[in-house]
């Protein structure tokens, strides 16, 4: 596929819609939102492509993990965002399947004075549904459920609060998010 | 029924129309052109460019016209315009040693390579109102000229440096931070401090510099030199892979040479303070160099005496006149919700106090 193709054709409007979905997702862990407007090269999902176009640029080091680290994806990201590729310890964003991203404790969790200086992991999922582990915490009215890739690492991440990484889970044209504040329990 | 500040939309429209009328003044008096402001109010234009952080004399002149001569309002217009401009890249550091000087004075040496050049200065004018200026149309007689000296104009600090008398300043290739693109983080590097001061309010820096002279963080400053002139700006074009000249700008540079008896960490030597301002901004450049030097107490192993000019967080947080004027002036916005909350609190506390007094 041509590296020029698959970007936003109306960036201001499409990224505004995409960001609103990301904002709602991060604000309400467990909710699933549909996004569109980008057609990234395989193996990236539409939702992962939209997330990268909406949030990444030349100021945000990005780590590509596993199958996502291929020439087509690298070229597409370089052309559309200019995001510099980086190792896990320098990454502001990281993109790949959970298996490819593991061990996830490689990623920045922020500084005690600046807990915002932490990575956001964009996790490509084979399945994304409102079932599985029970979620509680800020943004959740009583409880929610989400098909998470695992729970132990996420519980360990929660224990670091206010430090920790945050997740954006992508599958096809759908996404959900899991900030570090969410408490995760096996159902 | 009375309800406060109703009809806000009509009030705003009427206020703007009135403002435009006031800006124009008496229509029987010819309107000022932007070119007239640019050519005849040059120092105002320079100040707006310097504090607005944008070198464009025409836009600065337009801003002054629009702002009815309120220079801080004009700086604000330029800043708000500047922030919308795309960034194509950064220029190379300018070489002020190669400045074509219009003015260059040193207070430390009677004569020196490159000479003393008085230039177009108010310094020795007698401050007598020139009533002849009130009559229009007179063109002043041409000033005498001399052929430009071919001589290089080396920096005074460099001359001292050769003898090891002044602190060494190692070249530094660290990319310069950008205060307009990242939030201020403290402690700040000297480069970031200088950037903040270069955008800072002239009056604020003047008062701080004056306070150091009167003993609040005294730094024993001599004007090593002050120079004003044109320098070439170069930028590296990615397509070419090397730097090419993209234009010339006028700069004012001041290097102070400060007496220094040595500290816990440094030997006795002269130290430096630095000021650089876009356009002709002599007062600002001098002030900046004194404040820069006062802020350097930590790196020179001096004591913090509590002087305002030594206090980095205080100086950098308060030197920006656009931030300051906005926040200051916002107190004229309605605050009746918070005031009502206070009113109710004060009434209750008073009632309790009165009751206790009565008992």
């Amino acid at each position, binding site marked *: 596929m041509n590296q020029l193709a698959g970007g936003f054709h109306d*960036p201001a409007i499409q990224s505004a819609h995409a960001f609103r979905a*990301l904002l709602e997702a991060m*604000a309400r862990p467990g909710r699933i939102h549909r996004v569109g407007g980008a057609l990234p090269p395989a193996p990236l999902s539409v939702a992962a492509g939209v997330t990268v176009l909406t949030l990444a640029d030349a100021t945000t080091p990005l780590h590509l993990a596993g199958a996502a680290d291929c020439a087509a994806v690298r070229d597409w990201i370089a052309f559309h965002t200019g995001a510099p590729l980086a190792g896990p310890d320098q990454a502001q964003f990281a993109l790949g399947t959970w298996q490819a991203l593991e061990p996830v404790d490689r990623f920045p969790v922020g500084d005690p004075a600046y807990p915002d200086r932490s990575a*956001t992991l964009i996790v490509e999922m084979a399945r994304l549904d409102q079932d599985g582990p029970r979620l509680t915490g800020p943004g959740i009215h009583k409880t929610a459920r989400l098909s998470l890739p695992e729970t132990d690492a996420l519980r360990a991440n929660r224990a670091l609060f206010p430090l920790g990484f945050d997740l954006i889970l992508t599958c096809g044209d759908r996404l959900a998010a899991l900030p570090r504040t969410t408490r995760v329990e096996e159902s | 029924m009375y309800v406060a500040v109703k009809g806000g939309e009509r009030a705003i429209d009427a206020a703007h129309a009135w403002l435009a009328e006031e800006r124009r003044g008496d229509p029987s008096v010819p309107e000022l052109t932007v070119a007239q402001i640019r050519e005849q109010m040059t120092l105002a234009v320079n100040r707006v460019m310097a504090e607005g952080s944008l070198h464009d004399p025409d836009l600065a002149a337009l801003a002054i016209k629009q702002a009815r001569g309120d220079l801080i309002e004009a700086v604000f217009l330029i800043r708000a315009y500047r922030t919308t401009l795309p960034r194509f890249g950064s220029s190379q550091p300018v070489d002020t040693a190669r400045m074509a000087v219009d003015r260059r004075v040193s207070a430390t040496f009677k004569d020196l390579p490159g000479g003393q050049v008085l230039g177009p200065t108010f310094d020795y004018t007698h401050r007598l109102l020139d009533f002849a200026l009130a009559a229009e149309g007179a063109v002043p007689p041409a000033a005498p000229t001399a052929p430009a000296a071919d001589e290089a104009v080396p920096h005074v600090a460099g001359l001292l440096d050769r003898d090891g008398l002044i602190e060494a300043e190692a070249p530094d290739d660290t990319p310069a931070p950008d205060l307009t693109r990242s939030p201020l983080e403290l402690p700040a590097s000297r480069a970031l401090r200088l950037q903040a001061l270069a955008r800072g309010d002239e009056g604020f820096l003047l008062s701080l510099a004056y306070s150091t002279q009167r003993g609040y963080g005294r730094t024993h400053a001599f004007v090593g030199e002050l120079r004003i002139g044109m320098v070439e700006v170069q930028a590296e074009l990615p397509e070419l892979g090397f730097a090419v000249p993209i234009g010339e700008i006028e700069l004012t540079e001041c290097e102070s040479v400060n007496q220094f008896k040595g500290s816990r960490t440094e030997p006795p030597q002269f130290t430096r303070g630095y000021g650089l301002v876009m356009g002709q901004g002599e007062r600002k450049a001098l002030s900046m160099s004194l404040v820069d030097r006062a802020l350097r107490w930590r790196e020179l192993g001096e004591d913090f005496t509590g002087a305002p000019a030594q206090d980095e967080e205080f100086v950098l947080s308060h030197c920006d006149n656009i931030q300051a004027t906005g*926040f200051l002036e916002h107190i004229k916005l309605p605050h009746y919700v918070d005031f009502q909350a206070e009113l109710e609190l004060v009434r209750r506390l008073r009632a309790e106090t009165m009751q206790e007094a009565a008992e």
Partner: protein
Amino acid sequence: MTVQDYNFAYLDEQTKRMIRRALLKALAVPGYQVPFASREMPMPYGWGTGGVQVTAACLTPDDRLKVIDQGADDTTNAVSIRRFFQRTAGVETTQSTTGATVIQTRHRIPEAPLSEGQILVYQVPIPEPLRFLEPRETETRRMHELEEYGLMHVKLYEDIARHGEIATAYAYPVKVEDRYVMDPSPIPKFDNPKLADNPAIQLFGAGREARIYALPPYSRVVSLDFEDHPFTPSRAEHACALCGATDSYLDEVITDDRGSRMFSCSDTDFCASRQAGRPDGEGGA
């Protein structure tokens, strides 16, 4: 009408991305102040530049925007900010609290309950709750890092010792999710209970101080107090002279120079809705 020379919602895309990243981190660390590269806006610092930047980063063309200042839609600065977004984003505007998707506010939380799908954007002058106890950012950052809020408790306790109550009537500090002490912006403490467990997303923008912070929906937000001196939201003990409400926050209006005064709702949409006999918060178009 939109201003064609500027991007949608005025800010360039790179600036919006930077603000959007800060907003997501702010939601992930509730109550923590995220530094952001605040831009110079075409309105003065202190007049809502933080709120305007946050709103600009969140707006889509489908939004209905409400802007209030002191609870009212028609105060001059609210009018000015609403016009700015009409011109630069072309979004629909409304005075109705329930009809709005994004509400930018200065100093009030609307009386009508907010719901999911709504975003409340606060304009914040001084985001640091500890600032008037310790003016240095370098110090207050360390205090937040170490969760060292003793100074705040001492101040509140001194109030009680001197005045018999906590003498803070607005910008009353809160603790968010048992971690960060947060300034809720200068809302009257009457509004503090609405910060907690709110179904809407609450975003806070401080432009001059270059900080963004957030409360996700349904967050735990507790107004600081002591067991023997519990927090009490308070209001003037009157009914609204226009709609008769006894549970709304009131403006006091002086009607002559002989001490006559009346009280009316500060939330103009709430008041107009009640006067028109409509359900709360479904007032003006």
